[in-house]
């Protein structure tokens, strides 16, 4: 068993430097690596390119990095719900690359899977296709999309073992598995850190081979964006 455990978020983010590219798992505020985001804020690393489906809200998630102007560029599919984001984007302080959500997920998986490019129909005929190769398969036009990788991928899981095997809970899974594959170094923060053998090998969502560092996160606030209730 290869031991991947580090002490905490501060140790986990060692090596992340200004101007690097990071992937961060999560959908909205669900399944985001809260502890590493806090550590990045604290470490004041700047000029970051962040690949993440969303950009958090003003005072939580990636919004915390935005507020301190640590992010140079966001690569996302949906960035609403964030006034600070809007302000920085309109003022030109923040570059934004918007990507269809499925293409974003698949480009991350491709990056992890050694597939440098693939064809998808998503975005054909739209401004997303500008400058991209178009090819018709089975009578349907597709565009060529390239793989995404990152210096570091930072994911959040429910449980993990010391070998880096991860399982997720509910829809907090979302972008975490494909991004875990695509980091040159992948950091996982988990709610419970268990011994190898405690997780059933048949039901591992992210095999440990994709994870280089793992730690138990201290705090998981798990803020809810839209608390919808059946009375």
């Amino acid at each position, binding site marked *: 068993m290869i031991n991947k455990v580090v002490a905490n978020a501060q140790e986990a983010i060692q090596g992340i430097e200004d101007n690097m590219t990071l992937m961060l798992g999560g959908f909205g505020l*669900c399944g985001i690596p809260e502890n590493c985001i806090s550590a990045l804020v604290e470490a004041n690393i700047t000029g970051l390119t962040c690949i993440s489906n969303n950009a958090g809200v003003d005072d939580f998630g990636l919004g915390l990095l935005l507020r301190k102007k640590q992010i140079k560029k966001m690569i996302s599919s949906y960035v609403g719900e964030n006034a600070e984001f809007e302000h920085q984007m309109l003022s030109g302080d923040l570059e934004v690359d918007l990507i269809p959500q499925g293409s974003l997920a698949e480009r991350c998986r491709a990056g992890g899977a050694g597939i440098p490019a693939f064809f998808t129909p998503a975005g054909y005929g739209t401004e997303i296709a500008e400058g991209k190769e178009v090819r018709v398969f089975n009578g349907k036009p597709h565009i060529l999309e390239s793989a995404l990788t990152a210096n570091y991928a930072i994911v959040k899981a429910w449980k993990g073992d010391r070998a880096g095997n991860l399982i997720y809970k509910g829809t907090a899974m979302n972008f975490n598995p494909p991004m875990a594959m695509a980091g040159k170094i992948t950091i996982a923060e988990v709610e419970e850190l268990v011994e190898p053998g405690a997780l059933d090998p048949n039901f591992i969502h992210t095999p440990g081979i994709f994870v280089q560092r793992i730690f138990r996160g201290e705090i998981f606030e798990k803020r809810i964006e839209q608390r919808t209730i059946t009375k």
Partner: protein
Amino acid sequence: MLDKDGIAKRIAQELQDGWYVNLGIGIPTLVANYIPKGISVEFQSENGLLGMGPFPTEEEVDADLINAGKQTVTTLPGASIFDSSTSFAMIRGQHVQLTVLGAMEVADDGDIANWKIPGKMVKGMGGAMDLVASAENIIVAMMHTNRAGKSKLLRECTLPITGIKCVKKVVTNLAVLDITPEGFRLVERAPSISVEDIKNATEGRLVVEGDIPEMKI
């Protein structure tokens, strides 16, 4: 004229037994409340959930279980959870039989614009571009005209488009229309709405053949 729930009810009549269905944010979400008796459908939420159930009770609320609109939800028996790449594999691979989504504009050749207004803050397309590029059966749920009274059913979209020649059917507060090579074909009128009303509210090519029945909802 229909209200939002009326539009949702009419779209729900299109559901067929055994279908997997993706519902967009807004009016489409309401469709889940009107599934016809006797048929089984499953709802896919593109953040990674099949078999989505109703909103939770206070006790059931789980921050780790949300839908694509970021609302807290529940799962039904037979549900499954998966990552985003698998979720869009389902969508792109045409395993989802029906997609219902809102739009700012629909053109009479099936083009749709629903993600971006030049000059306004761009929030992003989310999963909409993958959905419209992939789905075999796309129904747009929207008001027939915008707040300024201008038609949203056009000859050509004026806004940046989300996908081309993909919409199959439009259900509005005024009518049900199919997209055909000749343009919007009027299928049904909303209660108390005349063909003339629909003609007046439709800028794109409109085909009206024979008697146009009133919707039954």
